[in-house]
């Protein structure tokens, strides 16, 4: 299988106020193929979100390398980095917070298109089409983030992420803030989007049941380290590590 994303020995240290360093992500390596859905699972504080932020370059990695389509993006900056964002997008946990509260949803969705030189009218037409693809009518273009429900806002956030047709979509607890039925709808949407577009998902989550329903492969993280890796079925049927077993038990 061809590799889309490859992460090698990625490590992140945070310095605490006491002057000590806290290792949030510790020597993490994995790779993600084209058209693959991989989950990163672990309890809060296990370093999942830090890992996602390092891959999207919102946080600087302390050491290690990140390759996207074999291009080393670990230290990409400025114009280079903005080009990389055309291949990689992220959906955040809190949909409402991920939109500027003073701007309409349409402004947020069209922003990346306008940044790439598209005219405003065209970008808004495209935004309308994207919203439709994500199951929302065009009336949502002119709504403000606090005027729509969490599920609707997350659909708009997915539309925004899809706008520049990324190859990799990182979903950072993208369904955690939504209630059960809406979670299901969003996952169904992501599944059908993957059929239509050639995308890979990195699905960061703490809910084992969701992962089982949605992902091909998973890695389990604890205290910044990968403790177990494999296909979803394999890990869930035959967990090897004590921590994975504990996660399983907490579900049942």
């Amino acid at each position, binding site marked *: 299988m061809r590799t889309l994303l490859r992460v090698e020995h990625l490590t992140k240290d945070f310095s605490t106020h006491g002057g000590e360093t806290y290792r949030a992500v510790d020597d993490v390596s994995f790779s993600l193929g084209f058209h693959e859905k991989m989950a990163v699972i672990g309890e809060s504080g296990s370093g999942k979100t830090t890992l996602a932020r390092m891959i999207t370059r*919102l946080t600087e990695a302390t050491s290690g390398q990140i390759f996207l389509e074999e291009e080393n993006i670990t230290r990409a900056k400025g114009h280079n980095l*903005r080009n990389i*964002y055309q291949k990689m997008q*992220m959906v955040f946990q809190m949909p409402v917070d*991920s*939109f*500027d509260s003073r701007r309409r949803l349409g402004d947020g969705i069209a922003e990346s298109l306008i*940044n790439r030189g598209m005219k405003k009218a065209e970008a808004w037409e495209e935004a309308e089409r994207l919203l439709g693809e994500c199951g929302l009518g065009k009336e949502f273009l002119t709504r403000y983030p606090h005027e729509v429900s969490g599920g609707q806002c997350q659909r708009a956030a997915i539309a925004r992420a899809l*706008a520049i047709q990324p190859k990799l979509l990182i979903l950072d607890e993208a369904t955690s803030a939504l209630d059960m039925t809406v979670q299901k709808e969003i996952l169904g949407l992501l599944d059908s989007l993957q059929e239509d577009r050639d995308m890979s998902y990195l699905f960061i989550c703490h809910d084992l049941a969701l992962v089982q329903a949605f992902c091909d492969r998973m890695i389990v993280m604890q205290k910044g380290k990968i403790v177990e890796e494999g296909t979803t079925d394999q890990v869930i049927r035959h967990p090897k590590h004590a921590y994975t077993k504990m996660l399983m038990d907490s579900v049942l």
Partner: protein
Amino acid sequence: MKKSRKQRNIVKFRLVVFASLAGLLILFSLFSDKLCPMDPYLQDLSNAKAAPSFVHPLGTDRYGRDMLSRIIVGSKTSIFSTLLLVTFISVFGSMIGLICGWFENTIDVILMRIADMFLAFPGLVFALAVAAVLGGGLQNAIIALAAISWPKYARLARSQTLTQKKATYIKAARLAGDSDWKLIVRHILPNIMGPILVTAVLDIGTMMMELAGLSFLGLGAKPPIAEWGSMMSETRNLLTTQPWVTLSPGIAIFISVVIFNLFGEAVRDWLDPKNGRS
């Protein structure tokens, strides 16, 4: 809790009323040259210290100049220097604060320590010292007051920027391909404007008083320029014999400060997120 529609309407009504009053005051001072009934600088010693009459509704000062005309003309000096001052300090201070908050580097440390230095002195005393060193004059009084008041805006803009830049929507906008410049102009600035605007409008009254204060002490507008603070100062020993010449510029200051303060409070209430306005 969101306010009811009725409360929101009251807030809006107050805003409209005080904005119009403040606007009228500014318009009035803008056309003050044309509005005053007599030449405010024409001396008529035979008619000095006259009591209010039909010809001189507010009397005349010790040189026989018509007080009403002087107060009308003085509004231009007082109000426009204050507006100039507040605009300058709020724009300049906020820019400094925005840069400091956004980059959070050595420049931030240096600029903020400089701001601390300015804040360490008691405000008006420091302004007095600056004005005394620079010499009197309206322009120097404005410089002196600007020197003591910009750090307030720098600190406010900095703390607002620090909060906003950590927000998720900034991360999302970065992923949408916004450069630092676009992030600041499109997202940070509109989101930090509210509190800065409120502070600036509420500052108009304070600055008007401080400017008049410096003029009263002889460090602001110089005679014969009509300015309310210096007019009070010139005539203060007439307070017991001809009180109207001292009191009328004082009342003019009082009315203007009250109007601008009420306008500021109305803007604050209107921008209050609890007001339920998007």
